[in-house]
């Protein structure tokens, strides 16, 4: 040995210390785990106690104790919490153990889960296009007749059609968003002498008037992390519905009407001409592409811009303490995104549930998701969790109790239910390559001035899977 022994022992001690530290970590973690285990046991016991205390709804239900897992993209405390409240409500009635897991990237992740052989029982699809892909790949199970009958009691054909894949029903709508809305402050409009525009031309004239008066008409931002660009696609879709027929819209969404056609690129130009008008948009560093879409609530409240076109759920992004549609001076309200031809088409969005497992308990939960009861319970829970204001939840299910909705939300519902034409957000219907890919990225590129409309629309067409 070339080294003195005392050094060897010191080395040995160091190794022992390292192992000791690692071991200590394991012990600490294990100790914590046992603590928490007790808590969990306690809560389970408490839950059991409440179930027992609840009215005896279970007379040996055959589904008692069966398990259903639900997975979806809604993951914040309010949304996922309210969703879970609604499921708990149903679980208490039937004895089915329902677990809901929400993850922000669930919509991307479901591909891997299905292909990896580990799908949930029910997935909440944010895009009908994805539901159709899964149905065609044989992952989803077609709805049995009794489930379809139950769904038809609560939803109009305009909405159930989104869950229909090549003539077979796979999905049930369970949430609706209204996209054709413009947020504004009525009192401010009144004091400045602006009127709510009824047509697209009136909207453009109003904007010009605002610019002439030194006001900035619009707040627009399309930055949204990995989903940057979707705000732009919403504008294009809304105007497609207005400038052209619903049939053209359907053909476009199905890939039969090219992006580079005069119809679609004309709408691109219409949007960009408006956005690029000097003084039109209040945006970060003058760049719409750099403005986070969630940051547009503050300037609207601060009167930095007069209008903001965004979906019904945007209420939640408007700063806390803002009042909605109560007639006060600072109240924020909405008007219908004006039409071009005088009709009233509506752009909607929402989620659909699809089942990966064929079992009675799964179908019971699916039925519940498509019921107005689900919408009512969830809406009540979400409003409560929000602590007042608008909940951000909306369901176009019929025969709901309207009292669960606030006045502004009721006006959204009446727009949804009285529309001549309802079309789903087109990018959600297109194949993922386009709808969650090039439509967003190329759209962002034109907005940012990196490409012109002809280049961008051609690139989108090329990416369409044939």
């Amino acid at each position: 040995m070339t080294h003195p022994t005392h050094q060897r022992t010191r080395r040995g001690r160091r190794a022992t210390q390292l192992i000791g530290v690692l071991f200590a970590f394991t012990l600490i973690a294990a100790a914590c785990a046992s603590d928490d285990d007790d808590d969990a046991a306690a809560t389970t016991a408490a839950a059991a106690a409440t179930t027992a205390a609840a009215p005896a709804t279970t007379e040996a239900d055959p589904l008692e104790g069966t398990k259903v897992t639900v997975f979806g993209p809604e993951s914040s405390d309010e949304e996922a919490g309210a969703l879970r409240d609604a499921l708990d409500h149903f679980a208490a009635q039937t004895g089915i153990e329902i677990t809901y897991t929400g993850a922000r990237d669930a919509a991307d992740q479901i591909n891997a889960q299905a292909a990896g052989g580990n799908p949930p029982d029910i997935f909440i699809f944010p895009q009908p296009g994805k539901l159709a892909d899964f149905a065609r790949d044989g992952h989803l199970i077609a709805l049995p007749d009794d489930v379809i009958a139950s769904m038809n009691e609560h939803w109009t054909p305009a909405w159930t059609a989104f869950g229909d894949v090549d003539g077979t029903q796979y999905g049930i709508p369970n949430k609706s968003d209204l996209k054709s809305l413009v947020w504004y402050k009525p009192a401010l409009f009144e004091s400045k002498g602006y009127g709510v525009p009824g047509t697209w031309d009136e909207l453009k004239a109003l904007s010009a008037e605002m610019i002439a008066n030194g006001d900035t008409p619009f707040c627009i931002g399309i930055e949204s992390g990995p989903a940057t660009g979707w705000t732009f696609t919403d504008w294009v879709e809304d105007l497609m519905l207005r400038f052209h027929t619903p049939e053209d819209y359907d053909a476009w969404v199905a890939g039969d009407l090219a992006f580079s056609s005069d119809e679609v690129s004309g709408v691109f130009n219409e949007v960009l001409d408006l956005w690029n008008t000097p003084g039109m948009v209040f945006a970060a560093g003058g760049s719409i592409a750099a403005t986070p879409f969630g940051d547009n609530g503050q300037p609207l409240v601060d009167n930095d811009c007069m209008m903001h076109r965004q979906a019904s759920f945007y209420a939640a992004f408007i700063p806390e303490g803002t009042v909605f549609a109560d007639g006060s001076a600072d109240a924020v309200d909405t008007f219908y995104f004006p039409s071009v031809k005088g009709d009233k088409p509506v752009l909607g969005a929402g989620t659909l549930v699809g089942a990966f497992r064929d079992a009675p308990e799964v179908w019971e939960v699916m039925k519940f998701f498509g019921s107005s009861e689900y919408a009512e319970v969830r809406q009540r829970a979400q409003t409560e969790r929000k602590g007042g204001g608008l909940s951000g939840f909306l369901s176009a299910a019929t025969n709901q109790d309207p009292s669960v909705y606030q006045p502004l939300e009721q006006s959204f519902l009446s727009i949804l239910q009285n529309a001549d034409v309802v079309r789903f957000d087109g990018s959600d219907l297109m194949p993922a390559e386009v709808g969650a890919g090039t439509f967003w990225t190329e759209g962002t590129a034109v907005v940012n001035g990196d490409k012109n409309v002809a280049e961008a629309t051609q690139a989108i067409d090329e990416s369409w899977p044939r």
Partner: protein
Amino acid sequence: MTALWGAFAGVVIAVGASAAVFWVTHRLFGLVERRWAVVTATSGVLAGGAAGAVASGLRSGADSTPLLAGSQLVWIVGGAAVFGLAGAAVGLLRPPSAKRTSAMQSRLRALTFVGPAMLFVALGLIIPLLRTIYLSLFDKAGTGFRGLANYGDIFTNAQSLDLSGWAGIFGSQLFWGSVILFAFALAIALARGRRRGVAADFSASTVGIGIGGGLLLSFAVFANLRGTVMNNLWWVVAVTFLSTALGLLAAVIADRTKRESFAKSLIFLPMAISFVGAGIIWRFMYIARPPQKSQTGLLNAIWVWFGTLRPSTGGAWIAVAVLATATAMLTALCAFGVRRRQSALAIGSATAAIPLLWLIYRFIGPGVGGSILGPNGEPIAGTILFVQESPFNNVWLMVVLIWIQTGFAMVILSAAIKAVPSDLIEAARVDGADERQVFFGVTLPTIVPTITVVMTAMIVLVMKVFDIVRVMTNGNFGTQVIANEMWQRSFTEFNLGLGSALAVVLFLGVVPVMGLNIRRMQRGE
């Protein structure tokens, strides 16, 4: 909660079982020379049990009916018994020569050491790699054979590789800056060489200037040759060099300070923050807001504040005074360096003075920072869109990774510096070497292998960069990289063919780096 217990039980069982298997095989293989029959019998039992398990698991057809009757246990025990007896018989009847058993023993011993790792690597990496190569030859659904068409798609696409802007390289300031630096380095090397009587003498300072020039040149090239592949290369060059250099700097200096662990912890902190956190952090650094509003992003706030320093308001004169003082000092230092023939000092201070002079010019003239003049002549913020303005938004994204990875380089290099034998350093100090000489003469040569390790690891890691791009731009604004493209193709669009081809391209791009490194390592041995 049961899952958590399951995890801990899994750990205990896995560790215990692995240790037991390791110990038993280790002992068993020790018997190869003396008790050959025991070894063959035991191997027979193991092989028979495994064969029995596989046999009982045989399934046939779509309804997967078991092919063989009988319970699994019977098959396993039966197989073990039959094979074990056969093994014992073979071992007893035909013992091999002593020379062969000894060779076998050493190979089997090696197997106990390498085996567990190989098992994980085979299941977790090699099988997926083969599957990926296979899938890359097929279409989106993985059924139609496409040959190499996916690879063709990648390289003929202007999004991946767009070399049309090559002429712009020669028009860029970066290019001419790099030419000046190269010329500088060469001039010094020649001058030093003439003094020493050789053609050219490259010292640490000339190499340093040369590397700086190389970085500028690469930036000039990558800013003009665009596309996903070029972006990846840009990331590799910039992040690898800068992170390693800054990590080395921090490790070396921290080694000498008293508050070493405090300083190192703070530089290391970014590594401890998740990518989600890092995305939010840099969003708050880079964000721009409308010019009329107060800025919430720190960098734009500073930039806009600079813009308010104008000669008319007096703010700029203070800045100019400070800058002028600094320039004067650098000039003095340069003169001192020239007289003392300390070329590094002279060149360094002269180089440092150039940006200061430029700043003075900007402050007196057009102004520094966001300084659009408003209608009433008041300065209005002109913000920088760090994330949106291509191509240099790539650099701002790289800054995030450099910020993170410097801690990585620092920790490994710091461990290497600590391992430099202190008696060597003491000996050098006794010989009268100063800190700089100790570093360049003793520390640096000893840690060069570690620097290579760090740079290799960094190249591999940066080549696969994904999270930052995904969180901050998702490939928009000309910042796409291969790994994010692969993610989008494979998981958003579920185009397994194209996604797999991209993965193979990424893999093949890194393999040469690894190969070179291993060659070097083996030459060193």
